[in-house]
């Protein structure tokens, strides 16, 4: 895998968008499976940085992770 390939996969994994399986469980991002150990750690660190930025830029201090979870909660009864 080239460095560019790895960078692209890392950037994909930093998204908060995650698919659900038929049972509703949140699935791993497909790109995450293609990363090696170093790439997965890099993706974790990059995601953490992005979420810090997102929280600071959001009027309610919420990240895209929080927004995704809240959308799911608000769309379904407990």
């Amino acid at each position, binding site marked *: 895998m080239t460095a560019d390939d790895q*960078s*692209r996969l*890392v*950037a*994909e*994994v*930093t*998204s*908060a*968008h*995650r698919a659900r399986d038929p049972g509703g*469980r*949140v*699935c*791993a*991002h497909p790109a*995450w499976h293609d990363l090696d*150990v170093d790439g*997965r*750690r890099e*993706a*974790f*660190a*990059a*995601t*953490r*940085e*992005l*979420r*810090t*930025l*997102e*929280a*600071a*830029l*959001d009027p*309610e*201090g*919420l*990240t*895209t*992770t*929080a*927004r*995704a*979870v*809240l*959308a*799911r*909660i*608000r769309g379904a009864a*407990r």
Partner: protein
Amino acid sequence: MIDLDEHLPAIATGDADAFARWLAGAEGRLRASLASFAAEVDVEAVLQESLLRVWNTAPRLVPDGRPNALVRFAVRVARNAAVSEWRRLAAGRVVPEVALGGGEPGDPGDPAAAERALEAGPADPWLRERIRRCHGELGGSPARALGARLGSGGLEHDRELAAGVGMTLNTFLQNVARARKLLAACLERAGVRLAEVWS
């Protein structure tokens, strides 16, 4: 120490806005608690699944009288979810207990780190202002790509976001990465190392 349990009574009654306020203070701590699993599971997926479980089980939580009972409960939920996911992905291979981060399953980890996470981060007005100032200096394609991510709130695939801002997926991803690096460099010039900030 900030006690996020002030939101617990409302969360227990199904108040999603209260859960949002709790999330704003707790997410960084929960993500940090999963750092040791980063090479083994997709932490973002595990974290989202864990937060949904916390929301569904919070009404049954009986606080133990110590601060941040819901955060500590959520750390246990997230850790157990990460171990389960790791075992599922390992598909029969043995997951070494020693690699699971030490301590008993459900150990909330380093209390000092938890406290620091609850006191620092973007809630710090100075840091928020710095990040906003740097974001204001961000222009062009990196700003548009990051803005698309922020605007979607994790609900749309990057392919759709890229199309919405007139980029190919590859270019969009490059611009998201560039935006993060440019903001990190801007913050570094102000004496802030983004990688060391607890969100």
